[in-house]
């Protein structure tokens, strides 16, 4: 799915937990997520901590879209 979006020229970032799959599929900008059933969250945290964690991952995802990449890049 990421490739079809990128094909029309829109920069896209894939936020996912199993980054090796994303690399195999061919995403160019990848941001690692927390866990498969809750990629952008963590039920063990308080509501506020969890929101901050999610915001941080989203900010990292947005940051990756401002970085020039020439090959597949995982933004840890």
């Amino acid at each position: 799915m990421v490739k079809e979006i990128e094909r029309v020229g829109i920069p896209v970032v894939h936020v996912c937990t199993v980054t090796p799959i994303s690399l195999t599929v061919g995403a160019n900008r990848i941001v690692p997520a927390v866990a498969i059933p809750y990629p952008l969250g963590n039920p063990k945290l308080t509501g506020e901590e969890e929101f901050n964690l999610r915001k941080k991952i989203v900010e990292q995802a947005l940051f990756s879209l401002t970085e020039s990449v020439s090959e597949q890049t995982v933004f840890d």
Partner: protein
Amino acid sequence: METKRIVVYLNQFFGQIGGEEEANTPPQSFDKPVGPGMGLQQLLPKNCTIVGTIVCGDGYFNENLEEASATVQKMLDNFKPHVVVAGPAFNAGRYGMACGTVGKIAHEMGIPAVSGMYPENPGVESYRQYLYIVETGNSAASMRTALPSMAKLAGKLANHESIGTPAEEGYLSRGIRRNIFVEKRGSERAIEMLLKKLNNEGFDTEYPIPHFDRVEPAQALTDLSKVTVALVTSGGIVPKGNPDRIEASSASHYGKYSIKDLTSLSSDSFETAHGGYDPVYANQAPDRVVPVDALRALEKEGKIGQLFPYYYSTVGNGTSVANAKSFAAEIAQELVSEGVQAVILTST
């Protein structure tokens, strides 16, 4: 004949520990065949015995790759198998990645390994050079046809018999070329193929052209404060009740849902339609999969121009590459015409 030791790797489901709620189980070992291992034992040559089974949750394996790998390696060290059999994993992505990793660990220890997967399982592309992966159907319904081919290959590997080509043995091409002796030289074979092609007759290529479908990275954005960002997910978040009836597995379509005026995705109005992972956490807080709340906050802070008032959703579980490609191609066209300049795509 010398007795050969076989070890089987299974996920929590086939290892009879439990369903998705047990997907976080760390590796465990048993000194006997379990689940599909029982059927496999019947099909193996008489001198091959399943001496152990390693079972690990699919979630645990993929989320704790290093720890899981280290534990599995220790377990294999104790069992000292001649061959490792992993799966079959059919079209289960996480299970396929785990089986492939186990095959790679075995390969690095000098132990041959066999698995079984559907050709679109991501484990095939990632690990096929390390182990023999028998082609299976996309669900456990093909267990009966998968096990005999896997048993035959495992038996041959255990007894150091020569392994035929992928077509002869039923495994997926490993991208390995081997020298063989044939009657006719290359130029003659090439001319014969060319003549067949000109006559519209079928022929088997000796070297299929590898298909690399890579897309150039799109140009980076310089200023996000004026950009419209859209959210797309394969995590199956849908309005409660799943109005478009997106399938829990092997999705045939996607949905487009309004998030206009919403500051977050509440559990009263949204849920996940995705099968194959424990839905509890996504249902409790759908923002954990589609982070509307975080993007709204960033929109308010002026870090992004605006959040596109719709998000797109489908289910990635077992969905064919062809379907996913066509969904995203449609979505992409629409995003372009709506002036969306950046996309965050989330997967579970």
